[in-house]
């Protein structure tokens, strides 16, 4: 062990002298400037998607065959696709599924993964060994493969893929949460609650869960970005969301055919929106992760 030198202490003091107060400022501090920009953008996209029936200028499924592949015009700011459908409207409607599908994946994976992790951390011993082993096995199957297996069994559809991917994301959440929960479990305050006669599940949910909650949230948000990519990829392969439903992955697919005919607008628009969504989610996830780590 080295004793920290005076220099490093002074430098640490210089760096660590920043403290913020107040709920809003805390959230802002946790996200940073770029994190706030990302959160703002994501909020705009999410609101537009949620109010798609109001916001979208056209019916996303209405084919104006006379104006197919029109390119940007005043009537259609982003142009129309091969069937003459308004690309902007389809983007707004497509963002719904692109956000809701992965959201559902992560919600399921987070609930299941967190419960498994807490159980493993609290019971320890054989149960922990069994759960950890199960997670290792799940880990050995790449995420997208679960989605594909599900499709192989129940046929292509959004729900199938969501269920498959949810299983795939369980170990990603559970591993991180188990580690954090094990650390908390060995803290003196847990021993104190135990001595006061609280029950195991009681301590797990009232003491440990609130303390690992920032890590759970950070991990969920970070995984969301990957889920968006995986789900869009499965749709792109034609195994997820089925046409004519508007979905960003599908739009890249249908836009791809137009690319070969020299009309890249649809593919560019849908691809860019996916990148933007994933970028926002990843940035927020990164900031939450580093702030969850520094709180320990």
């Amino acid at each position: 062990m080295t004793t920290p030198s005076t220099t490093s202490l002074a430098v640490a003091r210089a760096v660590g002298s920043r403290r913020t107060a107040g709920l809003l400022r805390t959230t802002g501090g946790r996200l940073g400037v770029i994190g706030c920009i990302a959160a703002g953008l994501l909020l705009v996209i999410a609101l537009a998607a949620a109010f798609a029936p109001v916001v979208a200028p056209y019916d996303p499924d209405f084919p104006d065959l006379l104006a197919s592949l029109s390119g940007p015009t005043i009537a259609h700011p982003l142009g129309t696709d091969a069937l003459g459908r308004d690309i902007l409207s389809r983007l707004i409607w497509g963002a719904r599924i692109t956000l809701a599908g992965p959201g559902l994946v992560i919600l399921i994976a987070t609930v299941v993964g967190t419960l498994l992790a807490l159980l493993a951390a609290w019971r320890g011993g054989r149960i922990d060994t069994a759960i950890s082993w199960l997670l290792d096995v799940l880990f050995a199957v790449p995420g997208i493969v679960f989605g594909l297996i599900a499709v192989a069994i129940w046929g292509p559809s959004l729900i199938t893929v969501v269920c498959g991917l949810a299983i795939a994301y369980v170990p990603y959440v559970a591993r991180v949460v188990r580690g954090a929960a094990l650390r908390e479990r060995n803290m003196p305050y847990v021993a104190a609650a135990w001595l006061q006669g609280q029950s195991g599940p009681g301590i797990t949910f009232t003491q440990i869960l609130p303390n690992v909650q920032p890590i759970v949230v950070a991990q969920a948000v970070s995984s969301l970005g990957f889920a968006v990519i995986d789900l869009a990829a499965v749709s792109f392969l034609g195994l997820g969301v089925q046409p004519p439903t508007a979905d960003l992955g599908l739009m890249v697919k249908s836009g791809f055919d137009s690319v070969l005919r020299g009309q890249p607008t649809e593919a560019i628009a849908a691809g860019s929106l996916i990148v933007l969504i994933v970028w926002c989610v990843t940035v927020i996830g990164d900031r939450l992760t580093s702030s969850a780590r520094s709180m320990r």
Partner: protein
Amino acid sequence: MSFGAYLARRTGGLLLVLLVTSFIVFGLLYLAPGSPLAFILGPRGGTTEQIAAVTAQYHLNDPFFVRYVAWLGDLLRGDLGYSIVYRQDVSALISGRIGTTLALVAMAALLIAVVGIAAGTFAALRGGWSDQLTSTLAAIGLSTPSFVIGVALISVFAVGLGWFPTFGSGGGGMDTLVHLALPAVALSVASAAYLARITRASVLEERGREHVQTATVRGLAPGYIVRHHVLRNSLVPIVTVLGLTIATLIAGAVVVENVFALDGLGSLLVRAILQRDFAVVQAVILVLVVAFVLVNAVVDVLYTFIDPRIVLGSRK
């Protein structure tokens, strides 16, 4: 632990994981709604002889466990089953396509290693705006799905500029290399971005270590210190991520092969799923899992060469 004992333990673990995944794969497909007979023979049904033949071939009258054991036994003998759709042995289907996938994954892995490590090191050592730029590019790269990059690459370099072919895997040698260039780039961008991040963090951490001060105060050349003391010591996290990345690349190839219409394992899998060709689905998924587990085992062995303090099998 001796190398032999480690190898034995690792192989045991590998077999166990394979046993479980094969059971899951087999079991899940067994759960699929409807009679397998209907899937196999298609909507038109079949003659009585055909039904009898298929029933015998797939042991359809036997209980689940008997069928699983029979399937496993076939697997061990190298018999991956028979594809109804292609009317061909699955092992022949796979061996005909695995080369394309391996070549694609190898090219992508090389790109990831070179670009990722170089960019991460550059960002960490240069700092300032070079760091900002690299980190921003990495964040965007990490957020871009491979199929979006694939479509963009085709649109610019194949359709627009005409430098590269749009589809197919070429006729071997240099031709294959040219055909696989764009797919390999598409497959590697996100992983290279991730590796660059990990490398940057690792190099920054190692650069602040005390033994690097020792090297500096001894007047060793800065380039030598970076290579011999900083990068060399950053290798554990870099190799971990690289290994994990390569293991998932094989699954990622499923998407990229479809964008570029390459005839590899990935496109075989997607077509098999759409056509409900279960023997092929089971076999390809098993191959993906085996590859994942094998790559991880190799990484485990690599650790002991990278850091002499790590003993075989002590890291999980």
